[in-house]
C-alpha cells in the first residue's frame, strides 16, 4: 500500500504539481472609504470604440446622425469606464457611488498626451437604474445622454468624468438629493478625484490630465455644475472655465414662479424629487407627506422617486398625476390682516389666464392644473401667502412684469415655509459669490421646463462680471449673433422643424432639444479659454 502511494507522489512530482500555479489577478479593491477613493483600480472598461466605429454606430440611427452633424465627426476613439468611488451623503456619511470616465483614444494629436478634463453633471431622471457609464446598453435611460457627451466632448479630445448622482445606479442612499447644491458638488468633486486616479491605470496611460478643468452640465446638471464651481472655488480648487446650461440656479425664484401658477412641464415628477430631497436632508418640509400632497397621492410618495418603474407606469398606476400639479379651483389667500397682500396672493393662486400671460403661455401653465391634483390646496395657499409676505425680490419683480436690476434680486429675507427656507439655502444667489473664471450660461428663452429667467437672474446679479466678459449668457432662441450665431440658427431651425412635425406638442421637447446645442456651445466656449 505504501508503495502505491509512493508511486502516486512520484507521478505528481513529475507533473510538477507540487508547486502552486499563479492565476491572473483582477483589480485591486480599496480598503478605505475616504472621499474620492476609487473602489476598484483599474475600473471596468465598459466599451472601447475607435473613431471610425463610434462614427458608424452614431450613423446607424437618425438621432445619431443629427448628433454627428452637430458635434462633428469623431476625431478620437473613446474608451468608456465604469468608475465606482466613495463620496458622502448630505449628512457626510460615506456613500458608494458610480461615474463614467470617458477617455479619448487614438494617435491623432487631440486624442493623446495631456488632455483637459470635462466634469459633466447629468440631467434630471426618475429612473433609479440610470447609469451614464453604461454606453453598451441602449435600453439604459442614460444611453442617449452618454452618447451625446461622448460625441461632443470625448470624441473631440476631452477626458470626461460624469457621476451618477446619489440615489441612482449602485447608490444605496435611498433617495436622490435633488437640487441640493453642496451635496451634489461633493459628489462631483469626489468623482473627479476618482476619475483622475482611474486615468492613471486606464488602457491608455499616455492620455493624461493636462490640469485644465472644465465643468458643465445640463438641466439639473446645469445647477449641479454651477454649485460645483461655487464649492470648488470655496475649497481653493482650480476651475478653468464652466458652462452650466438650462439649470434652476435661482431655484427659490423658480419654485415661487411655479407655485404662483407658472407650472412647468414635468412638474409632477420634479415636485416629489425636490420635497423628498429637502425633507430627508433638512427635515423641515412636512411632518407627514399629506401636509403637502393631496390625499390621492400622499401615501408612499416620499419613497416613490427615483423609481425602477417608468414615468408612464407610475401615472398608469395612479402614483402621480400626469400634469396636474395644482387644483384648478385653489381657494384664495388666507392672509387676514393685510388686504393688499391677500389680493396679491389670491391673484397668484388663480388659474393663469390671458392677460397677463399670452394665450399660449396661459394654455401651457393651465395644463398644470386639474383634478386629481398633486399638491393640496392648504399647502399651496400657505406657500403663496409666504411668497407675498416674504418675497423673493427677483421673482416678485418678474411676476409683476418688471425688469431685473441690482435692486430687486435678493432672496426672500426670512421665508416662513420650510420648503422655501431650503430653496433659499440652495439657490445659487446665496453665499455672495461669483465665478472667478469664465462662465457661459446657455439656455433658451422659451424653455418650458427650466425657465431662462434662472440665467437672467444670475446674470443680473453678476452684471459687473457680465460687462467685464467673465460671465456670458447664450440664449439659443435669441437673434443669432456673435461666436454662437451658427449654433443659434441651427437650434432655431431644428425647433422649427419640430413644430412643423408635432405642432403645439413640440414645446414638450423644447428643453431636451436644447441640450446638445448647449453642450456644443460649451465645447466652443472651453476651446477658446487660454
Amino acid at each position, binding site marked *: 500500500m505504501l*508503495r*502505491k*502511494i*509512493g*508511486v*502516486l*507522489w*512520484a*507521478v*505528481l*512530482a*513529475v*507533473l*510538477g*504539481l*507540487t*508547486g*502552486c*500555479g*499563479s*492565476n*491572473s*489577478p*483582477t*483589480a485591486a*479593491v480599496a480598503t478605505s472609504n475616504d472621499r474620492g477613493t476609487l*473602489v*476598484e483600480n*483599474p*475600473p*471596468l*472598461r*465598459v*466599451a*472601447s*470604440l*475607435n473613431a471610425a*466605429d463610434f462614427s458608424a454606430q452614431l450613423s446607424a440611427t437618425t438621432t445619431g446622425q443629427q448628433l454627428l452633424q452637430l458635434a462633428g465627426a469623431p476625431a478620437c*476613439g473613446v474608451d468608456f*469606464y*465604469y468608475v*465606482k468611488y466613495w463620496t458622502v451623503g448630505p449628512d457626510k456619511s460615506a456613500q458608494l457611488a458610480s461615474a463614467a470616465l470617458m477617455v479619448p483614444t487614438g494617435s491623432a494629436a487631440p486624442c493623446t498626451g495631456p488632455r483637459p478634463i470635462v466634469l459633466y453633471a447629468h440631467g434630471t431622471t426618475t429612473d433609479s437604474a440610470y447609469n451614464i457609464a*453604461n454606453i*453598451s*446598453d441602449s435600453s439604459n435611460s442614460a444611453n442617449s445622454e452618454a452618447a451625446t457627451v461622448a460625441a461632443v466632448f470625448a470624441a473631440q479630445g476631452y477626458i470626461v468624468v460624469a457621476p451618477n448622482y446619489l440615489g441612482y445606479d449602485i447608490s444605496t442612499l435611498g433617495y436622490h438629493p435633488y437640487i441640493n447644491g453642496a451635496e451634489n458638488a461633493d459628489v462631483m468633486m469626489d468623482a473627479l478625484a476618482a476619475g483622475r486616479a482611474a486615468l492613471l491605470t486606464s*488602457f491608455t496611460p499616455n492620455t493624461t490630465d493636462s490640469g485644465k478643468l472644465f465643468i458643465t452640465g445640463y438641466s439639473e446638471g446645469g445647477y449641479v455644475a454651477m454649485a460645483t464651481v461655487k464649492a470648488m472655488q470655496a475649497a481653493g480648487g482650480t476651475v478653468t472655465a464652466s458652462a452650466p446650461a438650462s439649470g434652476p440656479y435661482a431655484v427659490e425664484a423658480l419654485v415661487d414662479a411655479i407655485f404662483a401658477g407658472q407650472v412647468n412641464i414635468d412638474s409632477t415628477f420634479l415636485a416629489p424629487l425636490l420635497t423628498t430631497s429637502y425633507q430627508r436632508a433638512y427635515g423641515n418640509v412636512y411632518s407627514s407627506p399629506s401636509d403637502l400632497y393631496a390625499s390621492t397621492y400622499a401615501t408612499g410618495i416620499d419613497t416613490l422617486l427615483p423609481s425602477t418603474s417608468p414615468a408612464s407606469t407610475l401615472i398608469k398606476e395612479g402614483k402621480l398625476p400626469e400634469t396636474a400639479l395644482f387644483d384648478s379651483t385653489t381657494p384664495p389667500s388666507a392672509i387676514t390682516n393685510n388686504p393688499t397682500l391677500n389680493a396679491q396672493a389670491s391673484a397668484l393662486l388663480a388659474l393663469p389666464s390671458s392677460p397677463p400671460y399670452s394665450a399660449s403661455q396661459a394654455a401651457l401653465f393651465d395644463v398644470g392644473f386639474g383634478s386629481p391634483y398633486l399638491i393640496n390646496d392648504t399647502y399651496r395657499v400657505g406657500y403663496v401667502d409666504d411668497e407675498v409676505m416674504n418675497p423673493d425680490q427677483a421673482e416678485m419683480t418678474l411676476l409683476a412684469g418688471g425688469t431685473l436690476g441690482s435692486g430687486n434680486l435678493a432672496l426672500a429675507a426670512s421665508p416662513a415655509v420650510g420648503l422655501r427656507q431650503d430653496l433659499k439655502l440652495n439657490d445659487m444667489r446665496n453665499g455672495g459669490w461669483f465665478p472667478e473664471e469664465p462662465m457661459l450660461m446657455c439656455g433658451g428663452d422659451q424653455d418650458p421646463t427650466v425657465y431662462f429667467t434662472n440665467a437672467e437672474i444670475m446674470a443680473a446679479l453678476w452684471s459687473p462680471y457680465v460687462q467685464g466678459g467673465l460671465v456670458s449668457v447664450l440664449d439659443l432662441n435669441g437673434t443669432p449673433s456673435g461666436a454662437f450665431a451658427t449654433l443659434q440658427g441651427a437650434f432655431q431651425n431644428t425647433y422649427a422643424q419640430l413644430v412643423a412635425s408635432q405642432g403645439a406638442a413640440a414645446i414638450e421637447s423644447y428643453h431636451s432639444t436644447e441640450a446638445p446645442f448647449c453642450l456644443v456651445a460649451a465645447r466652443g466656449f472651453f476651446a477658446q479659454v487660454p
Partner: protein
Amino acid sequence: MQKKIVALGVSAALALAASGAYAGDAGPNEIRVGMYFVHFDTTASDISGPYTPPGLGIHVNNVETLYLAYTRSLSDHLVAELAFGYPPLTKTEGRGPAALGSVPYNGQTISTARWFSPSLLFDYVFGDPDARLRPYVGLGVNYTKFFDRRSTAAGDAASGGPTSIELPVSVGPTATAGLTYEITDRWHLYASYSVAQVNTRLTADTAGILRTSKVHFWPNALVISAGYSF
C-alpha cells in the same frame, strides 16, 4: 510544505527504482508513458453578466500532452488504472462577434489554464491472458482541477480590465476503450480512446463585475502509450 511533498515524491521515486532493480518476473504493477491527443467538444452557455452583450461564446483549443499512468492488475481480466496527463496549457478562444465595440473578440485567445486531470478507471481486458493482442474497456471517475488560470491581454481588453478566472473542480465519469499489445513479458503497447465529462462554471471577475458561463468541455482523447510491468 512544498519542499516536503517534493522530498516525499523523490524518495518514493527512488524506492520505486530500487524495487524495480531487484524485481524478477513481471509483477502486477505497470507504468505507462505515452501521448494524449485531446480534442474538446466544448459547449458553453453564452457569457452572462453586467456589461456583457449577448452572443459571447467560448471555444477550447485541442491539446497534446504527455500521458502517464500507473496500473495494477487485480486479476487476469481486471486492471485498475490511474491515468494522468502532464497538465497541458489549454487556450480558450472567443466565439461570437468579430469585435466588442472596437476590441477584437472572435478567434482571440482570451484565456489560458492548465489542467490537473487524473482519472481512476477499472478496465476489463478481454481475451486469453496469454494473447498478445487484447481489447479492453474501462469505466471510472475523472477529477479535474484548473490552475494557472490567466486572462490574456486580448482577454483583458475584451473584458475591460485585469481579469481573474474561477473554474471550480470538476468530478465526472470517464470511459475508455482500447487495445493492448504484448511485446515482451514486461513491455506492452497501448492504444485507447477515452472520453470524460468535465463540467465547470467559469466566473470571470473584472473590477468586481462577475460574468459567468457554464462550460461542458467533453474532452475526448486518443492515447498511444507504452507500458513496463514490474
